[in-house]
């Protein structure tokens, strides 16, 4: 397919506003008479709430109201479940316990909100929070996943028999039989710990209730404005067209802004209606560390069975998944782990059993990667160990096990996060890996450079990790494309956007169909007043699902344009082309009509139209994929470790991606860079440290180290394209891809650099300190 706009490095339409400080973020919304909210949050992770006295706070000058759970009366209700449990798997256990707007009886994680103060200014509101007196009975906290499941453990939810939130078993083939036949069985415990998404913009909400018109407007830092609107409608008893949710420019999402409903998200609109005043609440950074969802904590007891030539015969993974204090997001994250722990490999026998555990920690919902990095870390670590034990090259063992190109669509016989059978739609994996090997100069490095550098006393290592990513899942998105009388195109879609460049990549899709300049396509996302069907931006699905809905709508508009133009220009449709905002007769370029004129003609003010005629050049269409499209990639890295400090320097970082059709390489590369940078943080710098009481010990950017410009390398990006057969554009998602293989890559490259046979890395995140600790016992041993 030759394209004019799709696949081109088009500069972003949205940037001028962002570059000049004119783009509106939630915190930039200012409404006359607006009040400000601040929350009293629990310092304890687990405690009974004995009494609460807000009388002093209410007396403070400038305080308008203070609400506790009791003040909410019957309106106090746990949030609605976000992902309706349970999936359709035999014997699944799922205990749904949802977050509450304000703590009523018992605090279940540090940072849980207990009361909200509404005041003339944020300053006053925060001071008044200090005036509130609360009496707690501290309880022993559930922090450790294994201890949490032991009999006699304190309970996060007293009405349950244990802290087991869910249990799910999935299998394919017969692992035990495969194990019998194996030449080598490797069993390990692998631990993955928690990190934060740490978007630069904290969460925030501004609400405006107009009592006279009974109209509620909510600006929300959400990735899913339409579901938020729907939920508010249901809870507040308003009609749909009376609630408008706007997700304006959002300063990074990365998953946690897809969580809903955060307690504040329901509470602030409710208070706004109670007080009949506009209200603003903006989370501060400390609250973000405590009250915005996190992810990744899992403990895997895993076993892999192999033949002596390195073929994987089977895999068995029994793991614990930390869901934090509540589980509104269902099983999405552990299901993703189950679906990625087989990696891009042809594994015929598989058993996976997950126990989801309630803990007295911040809620867990997907964070960029969403359970996938854990799965990839597990399988790739196991293959590294297997390769070592079998004396097989690290690349060879992977190549041997990759799903071959003729095996697609490849059915995994388990269900995925959408509760649909896991099917890998398409792919050709080895060429992607091969390209990464070429780009990093693998053979050259192993044969010449590494020995030379080692001889100089340098600790240099290389890593290469392939991975796949399920993306672009359903259910659906929609879009409306309209040709306006000005000749410009207006496109509305329901998803939110958090910096992915949708205003541009979506415009390219439309420009391609309608022959207009990309800058003449105006995209509106995240405003329920403009488009009110859809789900949200998650699971690397924006470009795939919304992109294809836009493509479908634009195609219909194109047909309408051609039909009308054919009549007016008295030329058959086949002889017309759409170029430069005009419909032209191909052979007689001056015989043309502009899209704007056509739009006017399509909406006559007088006269008669043929029966069944729809006015305007407009179409709305939806796209819902049969199942998700699976992308593939390989990262390669060369690093050097300072053996004294364990600080490392990344010398080369290569990614090769196959995410199907590339809409805009400039944006794609940026998405990958960003994913990698978060992955590097996950792998070597970022870990949330909770103590045994559930206190987060590093709740600031001074202690929780997200990579700055000096930690990150240049990142070289290569592309290979295997189009998805599941959608017209042939696209696959890429938003999360960059993060997935990085922890596994670090582990492999570090082991390679240190070249110490006793070092076996079985955990992530690492850090210089942790790596030092891991090496110490070995040193002692060798002494």
């Amino acid at each position, binding site marked *: 397919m030759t394209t004019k706009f799709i696949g081109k490095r088009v*500069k*972003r339409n*949205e*940037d*001028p506003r*962002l*570059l*000049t*400080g*004119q*783009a*509106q*973020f939630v*915190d*930039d919304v*200012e409404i006359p008479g607006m009040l400000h909210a601040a929350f009293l949050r629990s310092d304890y992770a687990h405690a009974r709430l004995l009494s609460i006295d807000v009388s002093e706070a209410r007396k403070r000058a*400038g305080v308008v109201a203070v609400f506790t759970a009791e003040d909410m009366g019957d309106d106090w209700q746990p949030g609605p479940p976000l992902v309706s449990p349970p999936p359709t798997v035999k014997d699944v256990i799922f205990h749904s316990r949802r977050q509450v707007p304000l703590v009523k009886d018992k605090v279940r994680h540090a940072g849980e909100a207990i009361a909200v103060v509404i005041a003339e*200014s944020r*300053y*006053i509101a925060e*001071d008044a929070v200090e005036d509130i007196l609360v009496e707690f009975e501290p309880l022993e906290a559930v922090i450790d996943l294994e201890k949490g499941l032991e009999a006699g453990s304190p309970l996060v939810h007293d009405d349950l028999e244990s802290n087991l939130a869910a249990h799910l078993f999935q299998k394919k083939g017969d692992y035990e039989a495969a194990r019998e036949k194996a030449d080598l069985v490797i069993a390990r415990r692998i631990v993955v710990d928690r990190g934060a*998404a*740490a*978007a*630069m*913009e*904290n969460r925030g909400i501004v609400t405006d209730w107009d009592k006279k018109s009974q109209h509620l407007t909510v600006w929300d830092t959400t990735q899913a404005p339409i579901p938020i609107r729907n939920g508010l409608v249901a809870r507040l008893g308003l009609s749909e067209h009376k609630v408008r949710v706007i997700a304006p*420019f*959002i*300063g*990074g999402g*990365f998953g946690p802004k897809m969580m809903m409903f955060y307690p504040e998200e329901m509470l602030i609109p409710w208070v706004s209606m109670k007080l009949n005043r506009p209200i603003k609440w*903006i989370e*501060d*950074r400390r609250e973000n560390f405590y009250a915005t969802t996190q992810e990744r904590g899992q403990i895997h007891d895993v076993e892999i069975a192999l033949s002596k030539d390195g073929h994987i015969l089977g895999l068995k993974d029994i793991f614990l998944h930390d869901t934090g204090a509540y589980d509104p997001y269902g099983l999405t994250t552990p299901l993703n782990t189950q679906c990625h722990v087989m990696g891009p490999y042809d594994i015929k026998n598989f058993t996976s059993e997950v126990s989801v555990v309630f803990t007295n920690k911040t809620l867990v919902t997907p964070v960029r990667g969403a359970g996938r990095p854990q799965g990839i870390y597990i399988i790739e670590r196991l293959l590294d160990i297997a390769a070592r034990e079998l004396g097989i090259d690290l690349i060879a063992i992977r190549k041997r096990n990759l799903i071959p190109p003729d095996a697609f669509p490849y059915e995994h016989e388990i269900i995925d996060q959408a509760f649909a059978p896991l099917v890998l739609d398409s792919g050709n994996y080895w060429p992607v890996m091969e390209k990464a090997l070429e780009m990093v100069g693998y053979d050259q490095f192993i044969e010449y450079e590494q020995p030379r550098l080692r001889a100089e006393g340098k600790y240099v290592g290389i890593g290469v990790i392939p991975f796949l990513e399920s993306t672009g899942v359903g259910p659906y998105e929609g879009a409306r494309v309209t040709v306006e009388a000005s000749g410009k195109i207006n496109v509305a879609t329901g998803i939110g956007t*958090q*910096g*992915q*460049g949708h205003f541009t990549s979506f415009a390219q899709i439309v420009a391609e169909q309608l022959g207009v300049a990309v800058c003449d396509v105006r995209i509106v996302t995240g405003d329920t007043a403009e488009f009110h069907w859809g789900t949200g931006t998650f699971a690397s699905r924006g470009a795939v699902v919304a992109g294809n809905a836009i493509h479908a709508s634009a195609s219909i508009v194109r047909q309408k344009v051609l039909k009308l133009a054919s009549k007016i220009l008295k030329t058959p449709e086949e002889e017309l082309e759409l170029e430069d905002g005009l419909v032209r007769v191909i052979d007689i370029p001056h015989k043309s009509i502009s899209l704007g004129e056509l739009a006017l003609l399509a909406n006559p003010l007088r006269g008669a139209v043929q029966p069944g005629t729809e006015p305007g050049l407009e179409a709305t269409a939806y796209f819902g994929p049969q199942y998700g499209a699976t992308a593939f990639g390989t990262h390669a890295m060369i690093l050097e470790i300072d053996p004294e400090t364990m600080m490392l320097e990344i010398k080369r970082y290569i990614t090769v991606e196959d995410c199907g059709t590339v809409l805009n390489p*400039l*944006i794609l*590369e*940026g998405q990958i*860079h*960003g*994913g*990698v*940078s*978060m992955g590097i943080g996950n792998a070597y710098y970022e870990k949330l440290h909770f103590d045994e009481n559930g206190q987060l010990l590093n709740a*600031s*950017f*001074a202690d929780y180290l*997200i990579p*700055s*410009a*000096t930690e*990150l390398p*240049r*990142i070289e990006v290569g592309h290979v394209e295997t189009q998805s057969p599941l959608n017209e554009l042939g696209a696959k998602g890429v938003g999360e891809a*960059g993060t997935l293989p990085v922890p596994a890559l670090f582990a492999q490259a570090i082991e390679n650099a240190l070249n110490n046979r006793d070092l076996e890395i079985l955990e992530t995140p690492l850090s210089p300190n942790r790596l030092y600790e891991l090496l110490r016992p070995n040193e002692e041993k060798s002494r």
Partner: protein
Amino acid sequence: MTLPESDKQPVRLRVNGESIERVIPADRTLLLFLRDDLGMTGTKCGCEIGECGACTVLLDGNPVCSCLVLVVAVDGADVLTVESLADGDNLTDLQEAFLDHDAVHCGFCTPGLLMSAEFLLQRNPEPTELEIRTAISGNLCRCTGYVQIVEAIQDAAARRRAKAP
């Protein structure tokens, strides 16, 4: 603690070339003064404790975290924010370079980054990659991985050098 009304103080500043006189509480930070009192919301707030750099502005020519600066302590100062850069729709060479290199993703860190980069380029017309990375190391960005930002700053420096007499 909120300060009593009597603690308000008069201040005079130049903000983006304009003289501003206000009577403000003594605990007002420059960040909130810009955003709330002057309605200049281009400068962003990511942490309020000097750890993210989203609030970076130039104070008498030097980059500072405006969340850490009390306005009364800098009475008489000259402040430049992101809003001072472009002339209407005409972006500066630095902004253009950001646009060309896709150095803006969500854009939340961008206003602060532009000010740090502007400072660097004024001091050092030919910065090395390491100098650029160091100059922006106080500006956290969660979206870009900094690759395109570094390229953009390099490119802006080159454009400036090409234009220089």
